[in-house]
């Protein structure tokens, strides 16, 4: 397991579970996604940053940022920001019941999926309490190191005979103000409803969008709530 560097300026490791969950509502966490193919000496890897507030989650890659907002009626609204162009595309909230699970967005792995796994070990207390889970599905072994009170993935791996994918937590920060400022920065981008793109081919940015699709599961979609691997790697 890789070393986890936590910025614990605001969070005491001895905090109660409830207090820890409360204090970790605002998160900026960097992750590395690696893919190791058997026989290849060098693993492919890329990084993304998970940002979250109580009702927003963002996955920030090099160019693109995917944001999900949890609405008052529990619908999830996706927004995709293009950082270079400082533009955004807004999508309609998902309405099909059960199609999306907020915990998948919020903590990268859903509560439902964790419930299917077997707890193999548990260490630490308070905010540093970490649980180790395992699930074997056919020829695939999935392992999870779970910071249960912070609702953060510490590490996860999906191992097959020829391919191993890992998701590893790097630095974490819980400072509310810079996190809110980052969301405000993206929010200031000029946005367009996807429904309006078809009427705006004269806009070079939107015309380019005509030829782009939207991948609903980004790096966080390491696998879905059914444990189905999504191919690994960050789509950004």
């Amino acid at each position, binding site marked *: 397991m890789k070393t986890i560097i936590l910025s614990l300026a605001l969070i005491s490791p001895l905090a109660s579970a409830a207090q820890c969950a409360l204090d970790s509502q605002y998160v900026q966490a960097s992750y590395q996604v690696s893919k190791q193919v058997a026989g290849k000496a060098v693993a492919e890897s890329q990084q993304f940053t998970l940002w979250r507030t109580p009702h927003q989650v963002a996955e920030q890659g090099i160019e693109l940022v995917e944001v999900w907002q949890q609405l*008052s009626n529990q619908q999830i609204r996706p927004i995709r920001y293009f950082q270079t162009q400082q533009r955004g595309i807004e999508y309609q909230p998902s*309405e*099909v019941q059960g199609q999306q699970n907020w915990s998948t967005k919020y903590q990268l792995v859903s509560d439902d999926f964790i419930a299917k796994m077997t707890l193999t070990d548990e260490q630490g207390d308070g905010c540093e309490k970490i649980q180790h889970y395992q699930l074997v599905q056919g020829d695939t072994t999935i392992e999870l190191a779970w910071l249960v009170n912070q609702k953060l993935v510490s590490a996860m791996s999906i191992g097959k005979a020829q391919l191993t994918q890992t998701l590893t937590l790097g630095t974490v920060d819980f400072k509310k103000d810079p996190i809110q400022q980052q969301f405000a920065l993206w929010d200031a981008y000029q946005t367009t*409803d996807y*429904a309006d*793109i078809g009427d705006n081919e004269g806009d070079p940015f939107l015309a380019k969008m005509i030829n782009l699709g939207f991948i*609903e599961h980004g790096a966080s979609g390491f696998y879905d709530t059914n444990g189905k691997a999504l191919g690994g790697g960050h789509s950004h």
Partner: protein
Amino acid sequence: MVIIMKKLNLISLAVVVALAGCSDNDKNTPDPVTPIIDPVPVPIESLTVENTIAVGSEQCINGGIETLTGDDANQNGELDADEITTTSLVCNDSATSLNAQQLASLTTNTWYKEAHAKLASSQDNIANIVKESGKAKNVILFVGDGMGISTVTAARILAGQLQGKMGEEHQLSFETLPFSGFAKTYNVDAQTPDSAGTMTAMASGVKTDVGVIGIDEAVIKGKCLSGKGHELVTSLELAEIAGKSTGLISTARITHATPAATYAKAANRNWEDVSDMPKSEAANCEDIASQLVNFEKNLEARFAGIDVDGLEVVMGGGRRHFLPKDARYNSADAVSLVEGDRTDGRDLTAEWQAQYPNGQYVMDQAGFDAIDVTNSKHIFGLFNESHMQYEADRGNDIAGEPSLSEMTAKALDVLDNNEKGFFLTVEAGRIDHAHHAGNAYNALNDTIELSKAVQVALDKTSIEDTLIIVTADHSHVFTIAGYPKRGNPILGKVVAVGETEPTLAADNMPYTTVGYTNGGGFRDLGEETDADAGYKFAPVTGRVDLTDVDTQSPGFHQEALVPLSSETHAGEDVGVYAIGPGAHLVTGTNEQSFIFHVMNYAADLAKKADAKVTN
């Protein structure tokens, strides 16, 4: 008709009387004299059959009589084929006139009779139409955004099938209007248009560039100052100046291109609020939402001497363009964490309320239902943060929102309080969006809802004083293809005439009747009633096996030939349908700008407005 004529034969009933000899048993008893009837040869009848030859037959084009004769050798009373000995044919002379018999095949035919009856009503319509200028006290312009001819046809069939009919014979409400024609939709600079240019043409009588609202073609798109002095006057503005009540309804954002073209001037259709404008442009021009709220003030500033009372009815979506970018202003059904987009801190709903203290601002179904139509002079309804829901998806709206037909009814109840009449524009804005998403289900259901709204208007107004025009701003690349049998579900797979299973294409897979030339293509989202949900997936290229897919479900998105993330408009003409004073002018193929002139002629808008300005 077959006539059998029996000739009277000479019957030889030879009766032979013979003296009988003694019987073998009683030779002594003399036999009485016994008449004996010989076996008589059966009489053979000679038969003649006359057949009437139908008009149009190969033997006699004008009909005639075929006479067959022969002996009834087998005595069955009929002249069988092998008994015919002579055939003669007498054809009728060439017809010098048509008689009932000759036309019977037509006049007894249901299609013929129904079309004939329509001819009579069409003649009545022409005879009764008010042709004189200025006789339309009220004008209602319905616009189905993106409602091309194929959309109308498919929606007609779906509407009929939803009523248990085969579908093809059905008529949407506006298809019953007595006058119709075509509009050419191209923009000044575009073969295939957008809504901004097309609605500007309809509203102002002047074609302009794509993406431009209410300004002529001299404007440089996105350059605010280039449009100064080239702003157009719209039919809605003329009606307002003339003293009529004015109203505007859309299921899209009320600041979207089509509704905006009735009241705003913008060098870029996307300048819906100040945050959408570059600072350099915002410094010199007013955003579209602000122009809506300041409609009365701006009009009075533009034309000297007028005293107008503003738009009486405004209902649609687009709340985000009227609220500050501040979560404290969020409405109950916000779909963003911060609903408002305005970066100038203005709350335009509050500004509107300050201008019209007795007006009612509503944002949900409950507020809409509570509107007092008798005493309310001004209504401002913003029912969604962005576009209103698709008609089939309204149930999923958080706070609830009215349908297009409900808004139309409410608007008319308010607008008809003015004895000088009213001018109302109604847009079914989401037909276009469903097509862009490649989802025929929602496009057709929103078209059917438009049909209901038109019916509401027909029911609430009089042909004597109200001109109603129904049209579209442009078409979409939506097609009705293949050879499905009559009554085949319009959203289903093609099943050929006489068949029960889907026809297979050359790739051995079934295909749907309706489809798109381009767009996102296939999605199978089941019961999802929001067409825009399809945008969360990349375009699908190539064919998909639809064998086990329910293509009639709300969430099915039709296959597309050219993969694009958003389906596009199409450049063909659109239909224009009309009833009421001046409706007879809607005929033939015209530039889209002609529609303004029909409305202006029918209601004398410019003339009446001019009288107000000069006085």
